[in-house]
């Protein structure tokens, strides 16, 4: 995981649930199919997203189900990080488990528009809106969570515990 993440913002609203990030009838499909169906509330985003782009969202991003495909779809789309006012808790845990940085940052939704460029320091939680010259402080990750992120996810933590070599450093499936 990169310590500094810089990217262009796709902005979403409040209460975006995991059902729209990963509809139930798609989650057993291969990634090529899921790519087209994930995030169906913003199909143009799926079409035009560039690797390293960021998502900024309002309250309760990822509310609803325990399906890990929700953060996984975003990560596989190439989204570098999500910054939201708050998160659904299972989505949030899942994002940590797959080493996909999701930061809770009060004020970010107001202080950011679509297309703005942000720089995120994952270790400290400091966020700069480079377009608007504004800075924000996200809730910093605790050392426990940072350690999981830096190891490339919980599966790598498990590999370490079992003494199995990791296939790569990203922890992606």
């Amino acid at each position, binding site marked *: 995981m990169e310590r500094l993440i810089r990217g262009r913002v796709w902005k979403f609203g409040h*209460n975006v649930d995991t059902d729209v990030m990963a509809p139930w009838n798609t989650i*057993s499909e291969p990634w090529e199919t899921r790519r087209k169906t994930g995030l169906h509330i913003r199909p143009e985003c799926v079409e035009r997203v560039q690797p390293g782009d960021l998502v900024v969202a309002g309250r309760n991003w990822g509310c609803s189900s*325990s399906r890990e495909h929700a953060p996984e779809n975003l990560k596989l789309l190439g989204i570098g990080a999500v910054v939201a006012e*708050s998160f659904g*808790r299972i989505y949030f845990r899942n994002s940590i*488990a797959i080493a996909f940085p999701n930061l809770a940052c009060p004020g970010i939704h107001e202080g950011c528009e679509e297309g703005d460029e942000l720089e995120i320091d994952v270790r400290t939680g400091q966020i700069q809106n480079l377009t608007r010259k504004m800075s924000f402080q996200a809730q910093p990750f605790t050392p426990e969570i940072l350690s999981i992120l830096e190891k490339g996810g*919980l599966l790598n933590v*498990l590999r370490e515990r079992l003494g*199995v070599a990791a296939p790569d450093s990203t922890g992606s499936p």
Partner: protein
Amino acid sequence: MTMAEKVLARTSGRDSVAPGEYVTCRVDRVMCHEAFTLCGLQLASLGVQELFDPDRVIVILDHYFPTPTEQMARGHVIARDLVERFKIRHFLGHAGICHQVLTEQGHIKPGDLVLGTDSHSTTYGAVGAAGAGIGLTEMTYVLATGELWLQVPPTLRFELEGNPGPGLMSKDVVLHLAGEFGTEVAQYRAIEYAGPVAERMSIASRMTMANMGVELGAKFALFEADAVTERYLEGRCPDAPPRFGPDADARYEAVHRIAITGLEPQVACPHNPGNVKPISKLGEVRVNQAFLGSCTNARLEDLEVAAEILRGRQVHPRTRLLVTPASHRVYLEATRAGYTETLLEAGAHITASGCGACPGGHSGLVGPGEVCISSTNRNFRGRMGSPEAEVYLGSPATVAAAAVAGRLVDPREFWKGTTLS
């Protein structure tokens, strides 16, 4: 300590814990539905030969049963192979919806820490257990190690007071909370439901409220294990402790006193469980499908209320009523009690028990422009089928009444009872 704190302290081997602390907990029970296929394959690829304790693991295949596609059938074949490979004794097959079956078969004890591959694992709070949903990767880790890191949540307490009027079920109470407090009130928090109304609730009614605790954002949603719990678990769970509750000096982030007196039946309107209105404020909403199912509301108590409403009446011609009992046992008990026959005579279609239409899997998805009233837990856009469909959430009484009227109506037009006294 609160109930959540007591569970997390015991399972992390500490004398006490406080909100905000990170702890590594040993789980008491692990529940896997179809997600077990992927977790098991992942474990096999890591060379894991044995689970941390196969006897603490329960596998049940409920989301895709009866299997709607060949692909899902293949997933079930792999799941069964993995159950054998990892020597899991508690494979519950297709006995119904996970949370209902684990509870009714006595797999969950008051005070247990239960992690499941399903967000509605909060349901176990109905018998005083701390249940939470986790994803595939975390479950893979848990199955291998028996442990997981958890942050100790602050606890919110809802004291439910007053006298419930006719037509009311616990679903109305939890929808009322979602409407009044919003779907984030318990974000990163635990809930304790208490007060005289909670104390009088059956386990079935408690399960509905614990289940939808996750719709309030909660990590755990607990009822104190009391005499009602003890009676329910008698004969189901021989080693259950007779009581489990918070300490007298437990500290809460907030205590909300909720007056139930005068509360009318509640409905969550599209497309969010927090978009709640009293039934009288809805106006004309015509209904194409009425769905009585899911881990939220398809227990014997729920089918009994539906049967009372439908007895001697007919489902409206423009509406189809689908009933998916919460478990095979519920189906059998409803049949023995005569409810099944009453529902069939009224024109209801009864399916095998399982998750069915609730998460949009099979057996009752809705089409564009259709309106569904559902006894389930979530009405997010597209969850039950077409993104152009509209799903309303209500109690089993509200669902049954809508099936008769062909539109959303106050269930008190047909039913003066309540399951809350």
